[in-house]
């Protein structure tokens, strides 16, 4: 059951991003199963077809948002966070940087 929800979430995410169905292939779905899955989700109102275009409905979008955590995030910018606390101020090209003796841990004597 949870796998069934997972594939639906994956499909909705693919539609939202306009990305390739590779993730569904990774979940071991065949192309005919993917085609059936798309059709089911059009019938159950998660997706809607406008001519040949397929987009998320409001229902589909909220279902995706509730269950987004079930599928692995493939967008790197969303799971690699910048390390702000270790960020230092940029100094000018000709500046000479002399750290205080206290901050240089390798000068400290080992206990």
């Amino acid at each position, binding site marked *: 059951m949870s796998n069934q929800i997972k594939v639906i979430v994956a*499909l909705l995410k*693919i*539609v939202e991003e*306009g*990305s*390739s*169905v*590779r993730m569904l292939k990774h979940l071991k779905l*065949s*192309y*005919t199963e*993917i*085609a*059936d899955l*798309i*059709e089911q989700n059009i019938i159950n109102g998660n997706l809607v*077809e406008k001519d*040949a*275009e*397929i987009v998320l409905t409001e229902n589909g979008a909220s279902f995706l948002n509730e269950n987004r955590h079930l599928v692995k995030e493939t967008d790197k910018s969303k799971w690699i966070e910048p390390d702000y606390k270790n960020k230092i101020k940029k100094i000018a090209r000709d500046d000479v940087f002399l750290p205080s003796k206290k901050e240089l841990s390798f000068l400290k004597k080992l206990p």
Partner: protein
Amino acid sequence: MLHQKIAKMKDTESINALAKIFKKKKWFNIDDDDHIFDTFCDLLNILEPEERALIIELTSNYYWITGDDYLKDIKEVIKSVPQTTFEGIKDILLFPIVKPTDDKKTKSGHGLTYDIKAMMPMSSNLRHVFPKIIEEFSEFGSGPASKANQLLLLVDDFIGSGDTLDQCLKEIEGRTKIYYERTLIICISCQLETYNLLTSKGINIYAKYLIERGITDFNVGSTIDEKKDLMRTIEKSIPGSNSLSLGFMESEALITLKRTPDNTFPVFWMRTRREGKYYNPPFLREKQS
């Protein structure tokens, strides 16, 4: 249906559209292990959005005729010949449409001549007629190709540009006289352009399917050239397709029979290479020896 502009299709959209085409054309019945569908989807996956939309558009007008259909189809074609044609006819001479260079080789026309011969005794209008298969060009010799009480049937599954037929007729004419009023071209499918040309020359031709040009006959105005250019872009990544761009002699055919004729757009039957990897076409042809 006329298609106007170049559309774009996402991966999911092309899979959905392809599944609809397969259902509508009952192709899943032929493709019972989904192999062709899978191959098709793998190919769509690597194409650009505009390219996908073009392939889907072409596929919606595509004919896929399997060997299982041949007997039923050729029967239908024979039945469509007006009954008056057979009045006073004692013999039917059957000859496959082949190039002189393919003489004595087994081509698709051979199987069909045999099928026609076999069905004649069981057919209400042809059971009194005697069928005779002509095996090779050398049998056309003394005397006319068809005497007053004979009909010559030239048979094939597909007539594309008409080039093979032309060579075949010339070879026979080099040996004997063809009486066109007693000659019928019998085929399962023929390109519409070629059909019209032959008919205008007064040649009797009968076909079940008349095949239109995939881009030119389904689009209007500048879209035709835009889509042809888009197809040429796809063909850039199909090794060996250069001389067959848009199909042999730019036929733009959309048909697969027992084999796919080279008149069909190469993308449907030749391998596509993208980023160093080869992708099989849906209607891959067996290797030529």
